[in-house]
């Protein structure tokens, strides 16, 4: 680099010679040099700015291009994700307590049409109507040709039907995959399961939603994608359910009843092993809700849970249990049973206008089912305490169970608990409750006096409910109920080997206009077995039964519900692994009073 001197000698000498100031020359040169330096710096800065601008431009172009491709391409699932726990079904299976399938899903196809793509709509419509008889060819043809671009033809197809639709060969007919809810056991446990239907439907999938029963109550759980591969295990046992339903159906036919219900419940865990209501329906093809007539006459009506009935004499044991728990009576206390009893304008009489004599022991009141005796015991307790006790047993509220219908089955209880209500309630009239509530209340007596909440979900733990009765009273009550079977109103329930204890209940149906209908009864048998170590409660309810083998029709529970319950116990006892007790020698002091020879 050539350095330009700031004070070039020639010019300095020249300036000195002329008498000028040589410093001016130096300053002039300095100024020139600074100007050059400034030009260079400006050029460099301009270049840098250009490079920076270019790189920013490139970066924006790259980002823009990427955004463009992302927006333009079809979205795809990231491939490497999704491990072994892929969603297999959109709705969990429902299993019974032994792992047998009660409800599962099946892949099938729906049929839809896009008439714009159709070659020969008239031909397709006639062919489709030949495959599916419920379709009207004329209506289908009209819908194919009225200009719409999309329509559903059928929600589900069988593989054979799908093949036949393929064979029509019309390009405008399309199939969409569908997951269908399947109940392989048909009508079995239909009222427990309820049913399912398609919710929002798309071409590629449709959501399956529960429409009734457990499917609706547990809908959120069953549809939870995180738990879809974990089945819901119910407390229901398929074998027991099948046997209970078979015997109950036969019993219903023989007793000419229009409906029947049975509940089998574990007294310690509260698990419902079987819950049957007849007539039944097929949840695979759930009928539409009835729009006219009595809803309780529809097969969809769950008599065991929704049915709210006056359960009759089965309530007497509650009055006796409470009176004993309060120390008002013991098993041998004599109570006034002079019938008919008058209370104000009301007359309380025994069944068939019997009179069991002036006094009876508490045990006999239960065994003979004396209304008057129970009424006197109820009056000893008093309305306030009786109401509280029945409330604690859960008889005055809607049943608590994992069924969507349960919440609406509120017990019918009079608002004003007057003395006459106390009297009628002590023998099970005037208040109506669900048979499921009765099962839970009997389970409380059977398990030694602690409250049990019925459940349909399988659990292996005993419930630790609040104590309602002392253990001594509960034991004595079971012994009294055993007496009902050995020498009282339910002798037909004496199943050899299974010490059955129970109480019959016959309640006349209230008429629409008021009063009671003598020919229409609800017969209930609430039983506990085996009596020496209660494990199960079985409630059998028959709606309007009549037993016609004798000279005159019999409508008491002892002749209708009791033999049905006995046959159920005889059938399911071995299935539950209950060994028949040949001897009943090792009974304790309390039950020894009624120690029967169970082998007779």
């Amino acid at each position: 680099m050539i350095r330009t001197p700031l004070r070039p000698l020639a010019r300095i000498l020249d300036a000195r010679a002329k008498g000028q100031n040589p410093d001016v020359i130096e300053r002039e040169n300095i100024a020139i040099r600074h100007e050059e330096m400034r030009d260079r710096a400006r050029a460099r800065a301009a270049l840098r700015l250009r490079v920076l601008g270019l790189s920013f431009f490139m970066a924006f172009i790259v980002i823009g291009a990427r955004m463009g491709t992302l927006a333009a391409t079809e979205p795809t699932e990231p491939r490497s994700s999704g491990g072994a726990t892929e969603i297999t079904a959109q709705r969990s299976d429902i299993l019974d307590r032994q792992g047998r399938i009660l409800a599962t899903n099946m892949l099938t196809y729906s049929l839809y049409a896009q008439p714009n793509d159709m070659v020969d709509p008239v031909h397709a419509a006639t062919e489709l109507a030949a495959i599916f008889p419920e379709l009207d060819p004329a209506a289908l043809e009209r819908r194919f040709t009225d200009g719409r671009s999309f329509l559903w033809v059928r929600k589900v197809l069988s593989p054979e039907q799908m093949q036949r639709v393929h064979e029509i060969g019309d390009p405008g007919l399309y199939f969409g995959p569908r997951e269908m809810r399947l109940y392989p056991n048909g009508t079995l446990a239909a009222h427990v399961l309820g049913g399912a239907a398609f919710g929002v439907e798309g071409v590629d999938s449709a959501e399956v939603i529960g429409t009734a029963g457990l499917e609706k109550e547990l809908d959120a759980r069953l549809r939870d994608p995180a738990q879809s591969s974990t089945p819901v295990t119910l407390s229901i046992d398929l074998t027991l359910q099948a046997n209970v339903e078979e015997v109950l159906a036969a019993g219903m036919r023989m007793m000419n009843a229009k409906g029947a219900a049975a509940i089998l419940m574990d007294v310690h865990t509260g698990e419902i092993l079987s819950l049957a209501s007849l007539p039944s329906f097929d949840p695979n093809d759930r009928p539409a809700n009835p729009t006219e007539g009595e809803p309780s006459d529809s097969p969809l009506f769950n008599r065991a849970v929704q049915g709210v009935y006056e359960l009759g004499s089965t309530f007497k044991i509650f009055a006796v249990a409470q009176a004993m728990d309060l120390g008002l009576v013991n098993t041998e206390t004599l109570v006034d049973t002079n019938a008919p009893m008058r209370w104000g304008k009301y007359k309380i009489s025994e069944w068939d206008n019997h009179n069991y004599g002036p006094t009876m022991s508490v045990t006999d009141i239960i065994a003979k089912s004396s209304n008057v005796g129970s009424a006197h015991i109820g009056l000893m307790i008093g309305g306030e305490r009786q109401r509280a006790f029945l409330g604690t047993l859960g008889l005055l509220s809607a049943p608590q169970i994992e069924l969507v219908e349960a919440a609406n089955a509120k017990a019918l209880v009079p608002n004003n608990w007057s003395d006459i209500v106390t009297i009628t309630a002590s023998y099970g009239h005037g208040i109506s409750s669900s048979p499921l509530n009765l099962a839970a209340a009997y389970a409380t007596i059977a398990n030694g006096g602690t409250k049990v909440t019925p459940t349909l979900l399988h659990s292996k733990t005993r419930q630790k409910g609040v104590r309602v009765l002392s253990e001594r009273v509960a034991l004595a009550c079971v012994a009294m109920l055993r007496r009902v079977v050995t020498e009282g109103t339910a002798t037909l329930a004496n199943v050899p080997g299974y010490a059955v204890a129970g109480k019959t209940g016959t309640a006349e149906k209230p008429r629409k206009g008021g009063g009671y209908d003598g020919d229409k009864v609800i017969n209930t048998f609430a039983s506990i077995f085996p009596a020496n170590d209660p494990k199960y409660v079985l409630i059998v309810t028959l709606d309007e039964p009549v037993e016609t083998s004798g000279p005159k029709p019999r409508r008491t529970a002892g002749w209708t519900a009791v033999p049905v319950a006995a046959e159920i116990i005889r059938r399911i006892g071995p299935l539950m692994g209950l060994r028949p007790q040949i001897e009943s020698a090792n009974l304790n002091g309390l039950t020894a009073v009624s120690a029967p020879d169970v082998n007779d």
Partner: protein
Amino acid sequence: MRPVLYILSFLAVLASAFWAYRENYATQAQLKHVAGLHDEIATLRENIALQRAEWAYLNRPDRLRDLATINFDRLGLLPMEPMQFGYTNQIAYPAPPELRITGTIETMGSLNPADVVNADPEEQTP
């Protein structure tokens, strides 16, 4: 020295580019394979679900009861009664199989005990 370094680093870049190219395609091939496997698993799962449903349908209590009724005599069935409970020690062990004597068995012996001891045991078995 410098040119050698340049060449070496250039070769290294080439090698790693080649490696990355291969890895990319190998990974894509594996991803495709995994996707295929997932599809297969899904199909198999669907089939299993369908077969479980069919199994449950074929084992529905109604059908089993009908089948048992039809074949009641042929299979020598008995109605299930509570009194059929037994204890395991009431069940007899299976009878030991009978000895099968088919051919003749020759037995030969000597009166001299010393010969018996010395005899080859394999010769005595038939």
